[in-house]
């Protein structure tokens, strides 16, 4: 900024930036760097720490439950990404065809997003147990029920959200391009795959990014639906909860019965952060390349 405005602005910097900067340091910057430091320490209380180097990371990677939750989360994130985006796009495509009741349908499909993860988990655990109890089983007894149950829950919640983003994308596809495709004799399918989808690539980038990171970061729904049940006991006596995802595994490492493992929990959290941030950025740069420049 130039001229007369510059100096008074500089003088008022504390007023505009102060509150956010202070809160940001308390709520993010300090905990983040302290977290990185603590991942190299052994501690029970935050005031008494001993430096152990990479020991926590070695233990975290050796932990069977952590590795299991990693593969389980990865599988869940990919399957849910596919379902949510294909169905969300299909819903958006159907609702932009100018059919009757589009607004009502859009309202209904988006509604589950307003309900929180904990509540969603309990609603669906009641529904699944209501069905499965007729066959003498429960969602807490079999890994596959827990997995697909969570997929159904997440689809129910997230399809509407992605649909909204896809609708915004579909509405911004230039009308004259569609017209030109029609005049050139393109079929509906050709128009969809050759014209529409390349033009909504920005929306696809955002939606796949959101559903991938949401899948990896999932916590509330996982806790409320199965809380990681059922579990199997390893030969060495440790237990592996088979539907426990990464975030819940980290939480249990921190606040479970074994309070000596807080350093390991923090090391897992750092690995988790690197994974989520890395995946998100890699995915963004991959799909960004496929976007059409207009």
């Amino acid at each position, binding site marked *: 900024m130039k001229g007369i405005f510059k100096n008074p602005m500089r003088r008022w910097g504390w007023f505009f*930036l102060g509150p956010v900067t202070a809160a940001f340091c308390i*709520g993010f910057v*300090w905990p983040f760097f302290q977290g990185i430091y603590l991942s190299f320490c052994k501690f029970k209380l935050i005031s008494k720490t001993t430096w152990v180097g990479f020991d926590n990371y070695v233990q975290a990677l050796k932990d069977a439950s952590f590795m299991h939750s990693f593969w389980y989360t990865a599988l869940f994130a990919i399957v849910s990404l596919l379902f949510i985006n294909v169905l969300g796009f299909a819903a958006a495509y159907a609702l932009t065809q100018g059919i009757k009741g589009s607004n009502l349908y859009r309202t209904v499909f*988006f509604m589950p997003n307003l309900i929180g993860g904990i*509540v969603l988990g309990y609603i669906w655990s*009641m529904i699944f147990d209501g069905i499965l109890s007729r066959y003498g089983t429960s969602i807490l007894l079999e890994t596959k029920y827990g997995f697909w149950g969570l997929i159904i829950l997440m689809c129910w919640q997230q399809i509407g959200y992605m649909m*909204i983003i896809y609708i915004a994308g579909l509405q911004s596809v230039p009308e004259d391009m569609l017209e030109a495709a029609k005049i050139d004799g393109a079929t509906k399918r050709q128009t969809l795959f050759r014209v529409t989808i390349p033009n909504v690539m920005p929306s696809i980038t955002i939606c796949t990014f959101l559903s991938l990171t949401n899948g990896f970061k999932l916590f509330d729904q996982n806790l409320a639906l199965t809380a990681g049940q059922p579990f199997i006991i390893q030969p060495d006596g440790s237990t592996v909860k088979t539907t426990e995802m990464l975030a819940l595994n980290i939480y249990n490492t921190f606040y479970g019965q074994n309070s000596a493992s807080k350093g390991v929990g923090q090391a897992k959290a750092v690995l*988790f952060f690197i994974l989520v941030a890395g995946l998100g950025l890699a995915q963004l740069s991959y799909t960004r390349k496929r976007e059409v420049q207009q």
Partner: protein
Amino acid sequence: MNKQESIAAERRRKTTLSVVLGVICIIYVLPVLSVVINSFKVNTFVKTDTFAIPTGEMWAGFANFIKGMTFGNYPFWNSVKYSVIITVLSTALIILFTSMAAWYIARVNSFLCKVIYYLCVFSMVVPFQMVMFTLSKTADSLHLNTPWTIPIVYLGFGAGLAIFMFVGFVKSIPLEIEEAASIDGCGPVRTYFSVVFPMLKPTMISVGILEIMWVWNDYLLPYLVLDINKYRTIPIHIQYLKGSYGTVDLGATMALILLSIIPVIIFYLACQKYIIKGVAAGAVKG
């Protein structure tokens, strides 16, 4: 195929699509409906006859609601009260302070501004588990563990997205308006509050909607930060109710779930236009 036939085919296709979507819509609301019917059902039947309409001996009337309100040693209305306080205060704080900071960052090109901006963008990709332990300890030692002070934690942890959205919007506002204000004798504070602040309204609504949806439904942050014996939000309350295995009263749980989603659905139907716009805006920026 002549033109009339193709129009008729097109109309048939649209009607079929409309009917199919209508059926899907009905399936979509069934989970919510099952909450409604089970909240009026005697507890023992919830598990065995989940999808039956409560009649005869299954009908519990409002017993579940009465039981749910007084369940355990924590009154449900307190949770509602604290949820409302936390959500309103946090959203107000976030909107006010991040918009101020964002305007400053967008207009002043200093090193400090750049550092804050990129740290904010960076904070958006950091999952909560990364900071949950240290953040709850920090908040504890600063006495931010009450519903009246936890908004500061939300302001800190939630600043990233808000700053990002506001900076994007401020950059699209022409500088001339502010220059005119400054020539007319407005200082930075007056320029911001009487000129810039009103122009930011559309983004404020978007940010506000996103923050309300996040804070109202958030479970882990308040659970770890708040003094849990004194202050419980609605998600914490419901988790406590259901988390204790063995003696779960499903009927009462469903009654409370129903009570907690009714205001959400009313809010949604009332502000639907803004909510959907806010979500689309947040996604495009994010």
